[in-house]
């Protein structure tokens, strides 16, 4: 059990962690989420006594870390995978840490096997990849078989197999009744791993709730509606009808409408009543990632602005929106000198005949090609 009360850390004029209060309970994986620079690592460093809080306190099983007897047997932490002397071999690195708490040498070999580094045990750690470094860090955290485990960004640099392994390891440790506190800036990863979420931004607590609850609270659904392009007034007519019926309508850059507050059948009925033909009517759920982005966007420390590429080239006003991949409607010009020609015969968008009979002729051509 980790408990923070009014935890605050200031570095000069900058407040890294601001009046943070939370509890991390045993038996769960608790995800600690926040954008880069939101104070996750500083909080973790304060939990293990590396940084002193400016005010407030944080305790582990009721005691501040520095007062824990035989701390390594209570708390294991992976804070920085690269925090090892590169000239030392993996096994001797672990051994030196184990000896600090009188942990037997046999345990070193055990944890090396747990993280799958048996074969690299005698390698110097400066040759380790980021993924191997993470595994070594996890091994260090597991040495004392502690009840409380802290992991700062443990999946950074791991391959998909490694990510799955970390996820299962966290869940297994929590199932054994341990307190597992994992930080990440990836909501999607935490949604799969954590039972409980603590979200911070600019050092302040934004949310402290169960993962399911967080999803229910934060992921709003919407419908995407696209009026037929052949009807020039269709979109406007439809938009007005939907607004009148109480829907909230936003226009996407490519002309589709994003509607909230109305059910799909209702939208269809309204379109029918207004005499507008539809080319698309699809349900969407905002992903957890979007909910998280929405929650933290005001709290993001480093925001990027659009790169104007001054004077380099004219911006294409009809560029495809980022979420629309692949070729779409034929009236989208193939402008932009960097755009490769779409696949298919004659550089034409495939299956998009502009003249009757064209499809049949291409089909015949390609049939001949294969012969």
């Amino acid at each position: 059990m980790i408990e923070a009360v009014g935890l605050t850390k200031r570095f000069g004029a900058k407040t890294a962690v601001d009046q943070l209060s939370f509890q991390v309970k045993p038996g769960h994986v608790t995800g600690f989420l926040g954008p880069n620079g939101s104070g996750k690592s500083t909080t973790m460093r304060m939990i293990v006594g590396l940084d002193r809080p400016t005010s407030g306190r944080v305790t582990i099983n009721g005691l501040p870390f520095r007062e824990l007897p035989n701390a390594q047997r209570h708390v294991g932490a992976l804070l920085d995978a690269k925090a090892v002397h590169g000239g030392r071999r993996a096994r001797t690195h672990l051994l030196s840490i184990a000896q600090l708490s009188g942990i037997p040498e046999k345990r070193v070999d055990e944890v090396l096997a747990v993280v799958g580094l048996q074969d690299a045990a005698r390698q110097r750690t400066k040759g380790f990849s980021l993924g191997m470094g993470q595994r070594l860090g996890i091994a260090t955290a597991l040495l004392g078989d502690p009840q409380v485990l802290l992991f700062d960004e443990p999946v950074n640099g791991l391959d998909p197999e490694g990510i799955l392994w970390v996820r299962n390891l966290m869940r297994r440790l929590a199932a054994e009744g341990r307190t597992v506190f994992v930080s990440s800036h990836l909501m999607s990863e935490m949604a799969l791993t954590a039972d409980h979420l603590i979200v911070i931004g600019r050092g302040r607590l934004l949310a402290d709730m169960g993962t399911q609850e967080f999803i229910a609270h934060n992921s709003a659904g919407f419908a995407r509606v696209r009026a037929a392009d052949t009807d020039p007034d269709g979109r406007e007519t439809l938009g007005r009808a939907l607004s009148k019926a109480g829907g909230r309508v936003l226009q996407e850059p490519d002309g589709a409408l994003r509607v909230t507050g109305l059910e799909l059948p209702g939208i269809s009925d309204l379109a029918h009543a207004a005499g507008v033909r539809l080319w698309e009517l699809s349900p969407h759920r905002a992903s957890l990632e979007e909910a998280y982005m929405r929650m933290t966007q005001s709290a993001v420390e480093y925001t990027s602005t659009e790169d104007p590429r001054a004077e380099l080239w004219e911006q294409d006003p009809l560029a495809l929106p980022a979420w629309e991949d692949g070729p779409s409607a034929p009236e989208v010009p193939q402008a932009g000198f960097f755009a490769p020609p779409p696949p298919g015969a004659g550089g034409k968008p495939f299956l998009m005949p502009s003249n009757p009979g064209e499809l049949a002729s291409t089909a015949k051509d390609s049939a001949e090609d294969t012969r």
Partner: protein
Amino acid sequence: MAFSAVLTSEWTKIRTVASTSWTLALALIVTAGFGALISTAVAASFDDMSQIERATFDPTLVSFAGMQFGQLAMIVFGVLVVSTEYSTGMIRTSLAAVPARGGFLFGKLTVATVLALLVGLLTSFVSFFLSQAILGDHGTGLDGENVLRAVVGAGVYMALIALFSMGVASMLRSSVASISILIPFFLIVTNLLNAFEATREYGQYLPTAAGSKIMQVVPNAMGSAESPYGPWGGLGIMLLWVAASVLGGYLVLNKRDA
């Protein structure tokens, strides 16, 4: 946390990095090598030396003539033992495992100092016997008056240099900063201040100037300047410097965020 556990851990750490063996080996080779070289030169030109120099000739001190350069390797050893913890981030892994910072630092300094002392003693005895063999008739033996004190003292001097450097590195937390302060301080500042009558008044109280008196058997040997303290007094002054540096290192580690 038992202190013995920290000692075991630090022993594992110190023996498993390459810098330990090369810095200590260099300290031995450079000290003994330069000592032998200068002994050869002295032996060849003994008859050309002035009356005073011949009267105060100190064959023991001649064997430690290489100390001026050999101690630089000891400084690097002392600095690296501490500063690599910071430069690699190992300190965070260590302190996340041991909350008691005082015990951690003193365990580290104890192991490194004992090792430096052993290598220092080996160095001083090797240098002594090598130089005495070269000096031949002009040389002396361990049974001479105060000779054993000077030879053991030379080993202790090397260990204290290393410990002083560890304290400084604990305060500065950086290899580059520590080495670029310590080496000019010992090699240039101390020597310059002691080269002139006017500044020697202060320069003689600097750690290496005071501590190196322990290596002299003949007082004011080889025409060197008089000092207001004896060999033990000089070592005492050096010990005060070392204590201040270690205390500073402890205060910084205990107070500052790691």
